[in-house]
């Protein structure tokens, strides 16, 4: 039965009417308030170098390498299938900083020239209304930051020697424009300890004991040696974390900060607390075939496995210190108003006769990296299993802090902050360190990850027969996460489809350089 509106009801409705007229304006002002609040939020991007997702217990690795990450992940967004932009520091870091893939930002060779597109389009430029601060242990990342600092993008670019106990800073200062090769040569000339011999016949015997003397008191705490970059730029992660946390609490807000710490990058020199903790565990390596690109004709698989153990023990050290860093900034209240991104520039591999990341390969260990995003005030964990890329980080940070979106970026806003991305989205990784920097890509490895499939395409390498030669592999990551069964000959249709897409993409990115 239909009920008539009484006079009382009518009066009630009339009373609400002004509110309904005011509501949109009120809600809009609330939204504006929220946006203004977001715009004043800080950002910390914390990169741990050469940190493979495949060695992280949070992602299912059998060794308990990241107890602190697991604890902290309970109030973070955890990305399970996150990919770096490249397989070593330069392209990986540049992709993270620019939101572009290596074939666009063009920072894919060691210490290459700066590219205009990178200097003009990057995270620091995008956060120009923030106080921008950056530090890196890693000389390659420093080289990139130096280019951005030169372009007027960074307010406070902290020199790497700030956090080194000893340094060969004189060499890098004198030969600033050729820092990498000058320091490689310096290491070979003066530091005999690593290999047992050096170019120098006399000075090395004086220089090394002098450097060693300065860190003598720390040696008992680091049985594999005090952590270092390029042999004798010694550092302590504890000291770096203390310095970072106290510095970050005192910089003007809102700030955008980028910190790039060396561990767990080689040499894997863990703290005494974690030394040999995995020595007698039952984990065994998954047997994988010897590869064409393995270094040397007879790689020592046992030695590589031992190196992985040292790496895992070094991760434990990094995990503890990162845990301490986050606890510190949380205690100070900074985390309540700060977006924290924890990730890596690339991974590390210990299989197929290959150790490290100086390789043409793009197998999962060397490109799948961790990504955790800590949102201000978040108290719950969200797990994201969609494939995501380093180039997504910049658009995501701009989106969540209410900044103008980066129209140059090739990434998308990450879930859950943006719409759920297309699961069939094409996700690329590029390795082209032997290619000329500003030329079409003709010597490289590229990967296309689409849904559960991953296509790896090697081309132009001398080992394959030089120009025009290629090698194609297809893996089903869902059913074969160890990439043991190459499906390129059994799934010809999928291979052809993905290869066609990849080649089209290559043709597109090569276009400006032809």
């Amino acid at each position, binding site marked *: 039965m239909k009920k008539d509106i009484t006079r009382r009801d009518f009066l009630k409705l009339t009373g609400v009417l002004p509110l309904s007229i005011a509501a949109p304006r009120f809600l809009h002002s609330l939204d504006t308030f929220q946006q203004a609040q977001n715009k004043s939020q800080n950002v910390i991007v914390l990169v741990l170098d050469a940190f493979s997702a495949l060695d992280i217990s949070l992602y299912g690795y059998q060794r308990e390498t990241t107890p602190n990450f697991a604890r902290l992940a309970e109030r973070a967004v955890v990305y399970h299938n996150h990919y770096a932009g490249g397989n070593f520091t330069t392209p990986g870091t540049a992709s993270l900083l620019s939101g572009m893939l290596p074939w666009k930002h063009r920072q894919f*060779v*060691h*210490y290459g020239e700066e590219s205009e597109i990178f200097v003009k389009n990057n995270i620091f430029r995008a956060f120009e209304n923030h106080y921008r601060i950056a530090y890196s242990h890693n000389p390659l990342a420093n080289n990139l930051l130096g280019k951005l600092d030169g372009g007027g993008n960074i307010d406070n670019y902290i020199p790497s020697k700030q956090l080194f106990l000893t340094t060969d800073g004189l060499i890098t200062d004198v*030969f*600033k*424009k*050729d820092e*990498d*090769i*000058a320091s*490689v*040569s*310096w290491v*070979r*000339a*003066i530091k*005999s300890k690593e*290999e*047992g*011999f*050096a*170019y*120098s*016949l*006399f*000075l090395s*015997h004086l220089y090394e004991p002098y450097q060693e003397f300065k860190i003598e008191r720390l040696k008992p705490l680091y049985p594999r040696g005090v952590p270092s970059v390029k042999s004798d730029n010694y550092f302590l992660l504890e000291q770096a974390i203390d310095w970072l946390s106290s510095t970050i609490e005192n910089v003007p807000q809102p700030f955008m900060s980028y910190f790039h710490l060396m561990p767990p990058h080689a040499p894997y020199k863990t703290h005494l607390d974690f030394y040999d903790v995995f020595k007698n565990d039952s984990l065994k390596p998954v047997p994988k075939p010897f590869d064409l690109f393995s270094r040397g004709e007879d790689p020592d698989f046992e030695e590589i496995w031992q190196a992985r153990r040292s790496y895992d023990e070094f991760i434990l050290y990094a995990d503890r210190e990162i845990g301490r860093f986050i606890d510190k900034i949380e205690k100070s209240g900074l985390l309540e108003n700060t977006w924290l991104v924890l990730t890596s520039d690339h991974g590390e591999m210990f299989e197929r006769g290959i150790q490290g990341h*100086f390789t043409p390969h793009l197998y999962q260990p060397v490109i799948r990296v961790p990504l955790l995003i800590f949102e201000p005030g978040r108290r719950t964990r969200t797990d994201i299993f969609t494939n995501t890329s380093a180039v997504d980080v910049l658009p995501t940070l701009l989106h969540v802090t209410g900044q103008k979106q980066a129209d140059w970026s090739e990434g998308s806003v990450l879930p859950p902050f943006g719409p759920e991305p297309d699961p069939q989205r094409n996700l690329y990784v590029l390795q082209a*360190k*032997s290619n000329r920097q500003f030329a079409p890509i003709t010597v490289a490895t590229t990967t296309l990850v689409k849904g559960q499939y991953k296509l790896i395409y090697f081309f132009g390498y001398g080992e394959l027969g030089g120009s025009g030669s290629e090698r194609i592999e297809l893996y089903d990551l869902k059913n074969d996460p160890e990439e043991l069964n190459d499906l390129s000959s059994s799934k010809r249709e999928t291979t052809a489809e993905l290869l066609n897409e990849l080649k089209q993409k290559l043709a597109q990115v090569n276009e400006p350089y032809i």
Partner: protein
Amino acid sequence: MKRYSKQGLWALFLICAFPLHAWTIILAFRDFSWVTERTNSWDAIGVVSYGLIFAFIESVLVFLVAVLLGFLVSRKWAEERRLALVGILVFITSLWAIASYLFFMLNISIAGETINFFASLAHPLRVLYVVSLILVGITVVLPTYLVLRSEKFLQGVRGFFERVSTLTLFYLFFDFIGLVIVIVRNV
């Protein structure tokens, strides 16, 4: 009166520079392939160039030390003899330094019987030190004695140094090219 002539000092410098440059060149070319693999051959050339510059600097330092040592040698011997003495001592010391590196470079391991023999002694370390001292002593004392006492040996050393000096001049030319490369890489 000047203790050493300019020509004598130049000859001594060439002798000091020879082993340092020869060793650097051997190792730098040994590193060439991995640096090329790491980046490219231009960078590998860069590593060789820096290596040569560092070798030149070290040569100058070793030469200065040798000159200072030269002041300790009595003037009762002719300049030629004194320079030959200092030169041969630098040379022998360099050879010992190279030998210590070769031990690691060629992955030389001491025979099990030798280790067992030393281990069976009451004071193996002391004996090792004494043996080393005798070896080094012989390689230093014997040439020193021969340079100072034997005319034939002195002429042999001089002949050897002359040949070596010619080679070192080539190395110094390479240093110059290395310097140009380093400058080009840094401008």
